[in-house]
């Protein structure tokens, strides 16, 4: 029978103490591990979705909102940019911009956002096709992997979009032509998995229809539909550059610079000071977001550390009070030949066993909650979260748990090793 085995038996002999200690320890470890899991994955996703974008240009408003809506597809868009005013940015021969990808946001299909853009958007996330091809004609869409999976979308499926970013049957563009799925993307781990991508002109086509409908009486519906068809056809045949649609609007532009020179760096300030638009730098805004979120995270972390401290204290107290009950049997073990070091190890192992069990309960707790949270987080952050990721920080937590177990046990262990056989056993007379 090893010392470890005897420690284990001793712990099992006090099941209520064991449960209390495990619950506390697991809560502390679980909370810290969960924070890490969410944090690391969030940061990873945020970073992945930078997609090399240097600048986002959009309507004036909150720069953070612009970044969140255009790069992460989280918030509502800030407003519209008339193409007539944004023309300069759309120039393919722009001296500073390597590329400027237009985005038209604001519609969705069953909760998944539809992005009107060009094919550069798909290249941005280096998305590959699982099936089908790029959109060429108006109303053709390419869907991200998660959308296809969750809505069970296949090639050649058709659907009508809804106005706004939430699922609401009353807001479906019933009178517009349906979108047709021509391509399905492979999973990339970035935000495009959660998007439906189409040409900018498709979004305009849907909304033209919509506004006409609002303005004109039902009698003209037939005529108007015909007119629109013609209009669409005209657009296809000519396939004009975006800048020629002077009466239209887009939501924002994702800009990559040719190089990081002074002109490029001044670009954002120039846009903010001299145009009706704003330019936001993703890195700056996301850092600002981390700072904002960081306060809550710090508070949670502090709470988790407090719980771990309390659990260490609880292990200490239960070991210490168990010594009082066990002082005779400890003394008797000494008379049977046990060395003081034997009793020291016995108690230290008890602390370590509780800490290690608590650690594994905590890790199970955090990964278990991650499974439950993943669904919720996927909806609110538009990213897939995984519960099966194990971080190297979790090994550090394991080390920390061992240290706490040892520290909590060291004073009781020392006391046990100092058991005075004679005083203890002579004291128990009659």
């Amino acid at each position: 029978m090893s010392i470890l085995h005897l420690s284990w038996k001793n712990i099992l002999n006090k099941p209520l103490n064991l449960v209390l200690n495990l619950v506390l320890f697991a809560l502390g470890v679980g909370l810290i591990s969960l924070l890490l899991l969410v944090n690391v994955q969030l940061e990873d996703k945020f970073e992945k979705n930078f997609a090399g974008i240097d600048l986002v240009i959009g309507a004036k408003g909150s720069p953070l909102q612009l970044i969140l809506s255009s790069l992460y597809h989280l918030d509502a868009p800030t407003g519209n940019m008339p193409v007539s005013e944004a023309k300069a940015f759309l120039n393919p021969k722009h001296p500073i911009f390597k590329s400027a990808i237009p985005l038209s946001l604001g519609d969705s299909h069953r909760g998944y956002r539809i992005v009107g853009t060009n094919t550069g958007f798909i290249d941005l996330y280096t998305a590959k096709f699982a099936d089908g091809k790029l959109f060429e004609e108006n109303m053709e869409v390419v869907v991200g992997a998660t959308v296809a999976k969750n809505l069970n979308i296949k090639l050649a499926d058709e659907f009508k979009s809804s106005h706004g970013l939430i699922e609401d049957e009353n807001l479906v563009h019933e009178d517009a032509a349906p979108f047709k799925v021509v391509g399905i993307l492979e999973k990339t781990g970035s935000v495009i998995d959660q998007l439906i991508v189409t040409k900018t002109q498709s979004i305009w086509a849907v909304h033209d229809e919509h506004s006409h409908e609002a303005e004109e009486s039902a009698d003209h519906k037939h005529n108007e539909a015909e007119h629109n068809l013609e209009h669409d056809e005209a657009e296809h045949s000519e396939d004009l550059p975006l800048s020629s649609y002077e009466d239209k609007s887009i939501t924002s532009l994702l800009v990559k610079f040719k190089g990081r020179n002074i002109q490029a760096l001044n670009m954002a300030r120039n846009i903010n000071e001299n145009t009706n638009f704003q330019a936001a730098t993703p890195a700056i805004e996301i850092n600002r977001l981390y700072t904002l979120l960081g306060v809550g995270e710090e508070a949670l972390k502090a709470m988790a550390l407090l719980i771990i401290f309390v659990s260490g204290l609880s292990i200490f107290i239960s070991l210490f009070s168990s010594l009082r009950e066990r002082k005779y049997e400890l003394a008797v073990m000494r008379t049977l030949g046990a060395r003081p070091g034997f009793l020291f190890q016995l108690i230290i192992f008890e602390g370590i066993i509780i800490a290690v069990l608590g650690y594994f309960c905590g890790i199970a707790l955090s990964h278990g909650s991650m499974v439950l949270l993943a669904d919720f987080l996927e909806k609110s952050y538009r990213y897939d979260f995984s519960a099966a990721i194990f971080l190297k920080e979790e090994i550090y937590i394991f080390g920390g748990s061992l240290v706490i177990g040892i520290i909590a046990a060291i004073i009781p262990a020392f006391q046990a090793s100092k058991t005075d056989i004679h005083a203890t056993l002579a004291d128990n007379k009659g």
Partner: protein
Amino acid sequence: MLKSINLSFQYSGSTSIRFPDFTAEQGDQWLILGPSGSGKTTLLHLLGGLLSPTEGNVTLGDFNYATISAAKLDKFRGENIGIVFQKAHAVQSLSVMENLLLTQQLGGKSLDKKKIMDLLERLQIAHKANQKPNRLSAGEQQRVAIARAVVNQPRLILADEPTSALDDKNSTEVQNLLKESAEAVKAILLVVTHDNRLTSAFHKQLLLK
């Protein structure tokens, strides 16, 4: 052979207790009597190596307690001395069998379940082998204590008030079992008590004043 020479012990701030020189041959069974405060338990602890004397020394065989390290003395005690206290104080988290296996292990003996079962059989508690000690009656617990004291076949068995917590029937049984067990392993048996029920059973008696 157990021999104590010129033994005395002084508790801090108290007068020292001087013990008469004492010799017991292998197989001897002694009763040590005396009123409370006469130092019976102190003597027993000195003879068991649980306590170091202020003066004098104890030898068991050719082994002198005073001349060896604490670690060696612990090991020697585990191998050669069995002690029965007023209560068993068995390890509560272990079954009777596991307690005796632990005793074998701490005494540096090979683990032998069969030997333990035979012993428990003789002590009439074999059916309690897998019970936790706190499920046993006081008499049964003292039988476990006897089993623990003799399982390593020690040269010396010390018993400190082994029967004073027991009723008459159990007292007689435990006393007999103790004597038989000591005989079976040919150990010296020293029983310290103020329990008069034991006096008639021992021919060799030492009276402390």
